[in-house]
């Protein structure tokens, strides 16, 4: 068992699950989407991205790319959230919530690709 692989897999899967947890639920209902979960998803995604730094393999490069996409989408979602709660006069209404959640949905797709890559990598690993 390789501890580095454990940590790596843990963060990749956790990033996807947290993202999923925030995304699930009625897209326009602010009560079903907890900002703490979004915060956790951003932090874990950032850590997963940094963990993918410096891998020279082809699959490592794709891993890093998907993570960067996920982080980009999640950061956009938090910016929208911050704008809605602090700047917009309407507050966290249905349309703002829908925007934030749909952005996190995009990030979820990228995170699912990451998990698929992780599974592919694991399955194709042969011990000589």
């Amino acid at each position, binding site marked *: 068992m390789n501890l580095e692989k454990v940590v790596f897999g843990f963060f990749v899967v956790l990033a996807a699950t947290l993202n999923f947890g925030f995304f699930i639920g009625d897209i326009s209902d602010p009560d079903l989407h907890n900002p703490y979960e979004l915060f956790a998803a951003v*932090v874990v995604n950032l*850590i997963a991205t940094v963990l993918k730094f410096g891998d020279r393999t082809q699959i490592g490069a794709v891993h890093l790319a998907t993570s960067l996409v996920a982080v980009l989408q999640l950061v956009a979602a938090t910016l929208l959230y911050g704008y809605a709660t602090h700047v917009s006069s309407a507050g966290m209404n249905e349309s703002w919530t829908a925007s934030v959640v749909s952005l996190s949905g995009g990030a979820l797709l990228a995170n699912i690709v990451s998990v698929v890559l992780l599974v592919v990598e694991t399955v194709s690993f042969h011990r000589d």
Partner: protein
Amino acid sequence: MVNPVLALVKRLSGRDRGDRRRVRRATFRVAAASAAQASATVFLIMRRMRAPLIVLIVIFAVSVLGLTVIPGQDENGEPLRMSFFDAFYVMSYTATTIGFGEIPVPFTYNQRMWVTVSIYLTVIGWAYAIGSLLALLQDRAFRSALSLQHFSRKVARLREPFLLIAGHGRTGELVGRSFDKLGRRFVVLDLDQERIDRLELGSYVSDVPGLAADARDPGHLAVAGLGHACCEAVVALTNDEEANLTIVMAAALLRPDLPVIARVSSRTIAERMQAFGTPSTVNAFDRFGDHLRLALRAPAAYQLKSWLESGPGAELPERGAPPSSGRWVVFGYGRLGRELTSDLRAEGMDVTVVEVQPTDADGADLLVGDASDPWVLAQSDLDRAVGVVAGTDNDTTNLSLVAAARRSNPSLFVAARQNRPASAPLFAAMDIDALLVPTEVVAHEVYAQLSTPLLWRFLREMPGQGEAWAEEVVDRLTAVCGTRLQTLWKVRLTAQHAPALQGWLASGEATLGALLRNPEDREAPLHAVVLLAMRDREATLAPGEDHVLRPGDELLFAGRAAARRALSTTLLVPGVLEYVLTGRRVPASWVWRALAPGRPASPDAAGRGPA
């Protein structure tokens, strides 16, 4: 100074591509291996930044989360939770020690306790991250990887022909400087970082890419442009014979079509180099021997040769008057002594060799003893000698030998070897008749071979022309340029480079004298001398006024820059040519040509030649 459009056309219509592509692929592979090494270092750096970055992210996340969870109070004492944005804002300015205070409302004691903890945490996190980043930036491997990438990008972007110079010592610097003066580009490889740094201080006209790397590594040579389509020659000038041999090998195997010039000081290495294609080897001692022979036989020819080899801006060297017969004394029987002794004996001189160790002087008169010993000097019988060579590898010995020899016989012809550049002022003060500075001999030779093929041809064929001819050429050159050598340039009388001339050249009446008139005032001659006219590999040295020109001839000019500009106008503008040839001012524009009475408006009006 190559027209970029022409260069592009040349690149697009590249001939014998298949062969070249195969060879170039090999060099690309080598270059890729070297570039991969550099990128590997960058990946390692990113890997090493993982831990500090994750620590920073975690500390930030924990502090922000804590601030949003801990309950606060607003101005009216109502309970208030901080939003994520407020918490992130507070942590950002606190962690970076900017410290705007307690925003948006004063904190409760609970919050203050948490902020105190997070201040210490974040400061540690930042210090760790920034510290590791700075340490990595200072890392030698990282810096050299960065400079390698920077260098290879610069070389890959070169779109003009360039020289690849391996070794930027004294010789490399001299070669680089004279090529820079010609407006040519070059790329430098050297082991020593200090010498590469000197490139930046060197105030060259063009930007010179330089890399501190071992030129024995073919990967470094490939990165420096060995596989580049614009690389025109490789020059191996390192101090290490073995390294020069390796460079010659790499160039011959990876780019067999490139000319290679290497500096050597022993015959065995030179012969080993000849096994790889036909590299040109320059042995300073051998060349100095040849120069001395030429100087003995034809002082004016030697003067002309050394002047032209010194490059643009060089002062006319003095014409020596070496003795053509008599006895020479050679101090030091090393590599130089051996060459000179055999050269002098081939010229029919008697030679006495003075050497510390008893050696086989190959039939010459040998005197064993320390040259700095007055008794040995007395034995060598300098009073009745005509020339002396101070050729030991010690500058102090050489200088004192020259002084002692001059004292015993002031009329001696003195040849001396200068080993260290620092001794140059001392040798200059001694006013030596023939001074060997190995680095300069090599640099001049490389310059002569690479500046233009025509100059090299001229210098090779010139010694056979005789002393009187050489004197005349020197006189013609000084009449045009003065005592300082001006620019040398090449003109090809092809339809592309001299479009105005084609009709006139085809008439068979085109003489050099008629062409070389000033386009402003045709009574005045152009301030330029033709050193060489080349037609189908057949060269005419210093052709006279009545030399007949034909289409496709190549001419090597020496003269002032103004003459070069004037000549190019004559070559390009038909109206100017007409004036230069006949004295008639022809209207240049289409309208005036059409209006001019009795003159055809055809552009080949110049084709009729002088009446």
